[in-house]
């Protein structure tokens, strides 16, 4: 869990750099707050690939996986295709 926490923090930094916003808290609802829209989602996927070397398979992603940084971190940390 602490691993996920650290990852969520690094994701927050990535978010802040990529979108020029303050890093959201790990449990901020990114969809309701409008911090993540389809444009930013694509940028985020690209940034994840560049920075973390992870490639998320879009077919495996549910809307709820994207709701908070903590959940995105969980998705990034999970073995792909599992």
């Amino acid at each position, binding site marked *: 869990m602490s691993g996920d926490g650290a990852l969520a923090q690094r994701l927050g930094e990535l978010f*802040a750099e990529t*979108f*020029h*916003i*303050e890093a959201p808290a790990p449990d901020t609802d990114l*969809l*309701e707050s*409008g911090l*993540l*829209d*389809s*444009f930013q*989602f*694509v*940028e985020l996927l690209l940034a994840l690939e560049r920075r973390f070397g992870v490639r998320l398979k*879009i*077919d495996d*992603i*549910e*809307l709820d996986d*994207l709701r908070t940084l903590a959940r995105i971190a969980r998705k990034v940390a999970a073995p792909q295709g599992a």
Partner: protein
Amino acid sequence: MSALLHEPVTAQAEMRPEAVAVARGDVRLSYGELEGLSNRLARQLAAAGCGRGERVALYLPKSPLAVAAMLGALKAGAAYVPMDPESPAPRQARVLALADCRVLVAAGPVAPRLREVLAATPPGACPRLAWLDDEHAAPEGPAPAFTLRELGAQPARAPARAGAPSDPALILFTSGSTGLPKGVTLTHANVAHFLGWARAHFGLEAADRVSQHAPLRFDISTFDIYGALWSGAELHLVPPELNLLPHKLAQLMREARLTQWFSVPAVLTLMAKFDVVAPGDFPSLRRVLFAGEVMPTPTLMYWMRRLPHVFFTNLYAPTETTISSSYYDVPRCPAGARAPIPIGRAVPGEELLLLDGELHIAGAGLSPGYWRDPERTAEAFVPRPGRPGERLYRTGDLARVGEDGMLYFLGRADTQVKCRGHRIELGEIEAALNALAALRESAVVAIASSGFEGALLCCAYAPAPAAVVTPQSLRAGLAAVLPGYMLPQRWLRCEALPKNDSGKIDRAALRAAFEGGGEARIEEAA
């Protein structure tokens, strides 16, 4: 007598009350239910003093209830104004003040934002609140003028006819270059004219299952809604959050067995980029329509190769001329990725004229003008040369006629850009930047993006002496007054902005700098 927009819907409800009219996921309203609910709302609005000559603001998530609220407002004789709850409160308050609505119909998890908006609206322009939601709490403050309970006490019978085809039916607010949004007024007759042609051209019928993808404040949504409901078809509302997940959009198209899909090209490009369409996918689908911005040819090729059974049509019109003034039925898959997609030829009843290369539009779709804004109306809606009493709308779009006789869009005569179908005046962003004290000068330019979103907004700025300015602080400042889709995505700090010989900001140089990612070059030039 020409129909009011809600009347053919009533006729469908009388013929097939049990048929599904509007669906969002598992939430469905039959034609009979839609009719009853909108009749009750119309009666309650009338009781609240809202009738012909008035306006109703709509503050609801995209839902069957929102569609019923539109019909209810029209049946009361009023025009509706779809609000954008995601845009910042001060901007929404300006829209509310300008629209001068008698009632605001609201539902959903909107209470905190709505409270801010109402607090920022001048008391004289503050509408009475209709709160149509039992699950979410109304905003704190004065009790709503009515709720679902009062609505339930009204008879479900249709109220007496109120209004005429030339009455405003809806007012759609769009970006204004001076920083103030402007409201495009569309009448019943404007929309009915387009529907008359489009329903026949596309062969809409009761067996259709029609997508409703665009936000309710986009004029193209009126074709989805009334095109389907006039035909007795099923209208399937697409939840906006699905735009994040293109495979979910495809899944909805598949599972709802949609026969018609209509969206901005950005969405079709997003789905193509993630390759979520299989060869021969969506066997029920018959038509894909797109409008609102230039369709990238590779996107169209992707779709047409995978779906040879589907009919593709490009529609073109500014909101001011109602949904679409021209159309292009794509005859075959484009031969190459560089072949431009024409905007086609005029819809019957409309005329497209090229005057000095700029497209002007005349005809039955022409809006009466901008809501309570004679000055901007006179600038954009001009007398037609040689035809006294007729008007032309100056689109600001540059075009040419091709050898095939079709019209081709070339670009803009001004600094309006399209970004994911949103119409954005760069001047409105610059006006908001100028209001931030920390900047000496600034400019916003748009460049083509490599992604799906159309234009990429880029801001160059020079801080005021001793001011501490970061892209982050500027973005936060702008986010307080502009909606998310108007916030620049690229930033460039300069000591001074580059100027041309006449001393004006050299926008071409700025665009080149952003396109090349060459920040250093600009610093030298400055």
